[in-house]
């Protein structure tokens, strides 16, 4: 567990070194970041090794007539010659799911939670709260969580994106009245793709580990769960709690939970119907959402 064996280990160290060479401005902080990264890499290693299994287990193309059909086949159409958009990492779109039993129960639980609680709440909220207000609430939370995106841009050596995050934060916090408005919206360079710690880990070739469906929080993987915990610590309110700043009501657990609830309901109002469509379009909704989650994360890591 303390060593990173094999080719993948080399890849990880290789990209780290390459990355840090390009980010000379981060000289001071890089040692700390490196330690954090190594810590996460070590933590995730066993699961990550497991995640590679289905890939290597997939039978070669010529062998497909004999033996059982793999659930996640290496597809001949993803061959470079057939489909130039196919990339090597298409193979990695599979994820180990050893706790599928638990996950399916949680998927059903979240599904009921959506239809019985979240969706009615969001529809009610949408009828009462006009669109500009909902947009402002969304902007406010997005602006507040800038540190998470900034740190992850820097961790990935995306200096330009980090500059964009900072620029947007300063414009929207001032001209945008504490982030409720989004005057930075029209400048593409101030709107880099949002980064999170799960993506950062993925950027350093940390594998998904296993697929986990959390009650309330929904689909994730071991890697992305650890990422979310790290991101949570960088959320300004939890950060204040962690470093024992007592800001009274602001840092209370209740405030935190209410804020999360409001944010979730508010964000859902913009997406009502999307979940239903993907579910209706699926032959097996559980598998459809698992695959969609993994594909979506891969595309975000690639950005």
């Amino acid at each position, binding site marked *: 567990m303390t060593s990173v064996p094999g080719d993948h280990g080399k890849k990880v160290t290789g990209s780290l070194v390459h990355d840090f060479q390009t980010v000379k401005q981060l000289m001071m902080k890089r040692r700390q970041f490196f330690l954090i990264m190594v810590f996460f890499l070590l933590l995730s290693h066993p699961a990550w090794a497991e995640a590679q299994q289905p890939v290597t287990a997939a039978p070669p193309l010529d062998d497909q007539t004999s033996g059982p059909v793999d659930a996640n086949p290496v597809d001949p159409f993803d061959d470079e010659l057939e489909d130039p958009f196919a990339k090597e990492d298409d193979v990695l779109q599979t994820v180990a799911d050893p706790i599928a039993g638990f996950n399916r129960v949680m998927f059903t639980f979240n599904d009921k939670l959506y239809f019985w609680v979240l969706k009615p709440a969001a529809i009610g909220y949408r009828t009462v709260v006009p669109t500009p207000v909902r947009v402002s609430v969304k902007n406010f939370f997005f602006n507040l969580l800038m540190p998470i995106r900034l740190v992850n841009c820097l961790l990935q050596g995306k200096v330009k994106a980090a500059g964009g995050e900072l620029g947007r934060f300063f414009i929207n916090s001032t001209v945008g009245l504490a982030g409720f408005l989004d005057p930075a919206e029209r400048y593409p360079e101030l709107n880099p793709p949002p980064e999170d710690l799960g993506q950062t880990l993925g950027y350093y070739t940390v594998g998904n580990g296993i697929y986990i469906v959390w009650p309330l929080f929904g689909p994730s993987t071991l890697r992305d769960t650890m990422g979310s915990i790290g991101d949570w610590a960088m959320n300004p309110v939890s950060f204040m709690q962690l470093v024992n700043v007592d800001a009274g009501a602001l840092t209370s657990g209740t405030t935190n939970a209410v804020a999360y609830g409001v944010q979730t309901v508010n964000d859902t109002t913009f997406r009502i119907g999307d979940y239903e*469509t993907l579910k209706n379009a699926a032959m097996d909704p559980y598998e459809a959402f698992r695959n969609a989650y993994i594909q979506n994360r*891969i595309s975000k890591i690639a950005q």
Partner: protein
Amino acid sequence: MLPDRIDNSSKKPGLPVDNRKRDAAWEDIMILKTISAALVMFLLMLMPASAGPTDPMTTIKGPIDSVIVILNDPQYKTAGTKVTQRNQIWKTVKPIFDFNEISRRAVARNWKAFSNTEKAQFIDVFADFLGNTYIDKIQGEYHNEKIVYLGQDFYSDEYAEVKTQILRETLEIPVYYRMRKHNDGSWRVYDIIVEGVSLVKNYRTQFASILEKETPAQLIQRLNEKLAKQNKSLSENG
């Protein structure tokens, strides 16, 4: 040849031919000729790159714009017109999709386990099922979303990706159309990638796990049942 013509045109009765005038006219003609030749050259150069209907982006833009017109058409705002509107939309968009290729790619390696009849049945039912699902979605929830065409990438003469974005209130949803050029020169869609999720690959995992336990005929049966259910609820809500 040209100077003769000018001679003829300027030789109007009663007017003597002025040599200097004739030279000036000749010069004008030469300039015009050069400009028109350059124009033709320019147009010829332009043609292969963006030849109207064979351009991937134009191929999908036309039908998508028509769908938005149909969605906004007041004649479909009254009750009982939903099925007509759906059929109208389906007729508009169906030709831009290559359901043969979509099916083949979604079933992937199991495709060879299908007989020719089963292949044809599968393509038909899968096409209708996809059509129903997504038309139902846009019919139910179209709120003046705008479609932005970001551009098209050619990966070869045969493959292209058209990048679009759906703008909804505060959300930007990236939708990429992957297209292949057919022998007749037409471009058709073989996969749609929404927020990084490929539709074909999403079905591929689902079909693969069903076909692990069931026969192609049973999968077709399942799709037929889902389609029948969809049609029933659509006509009831029509």
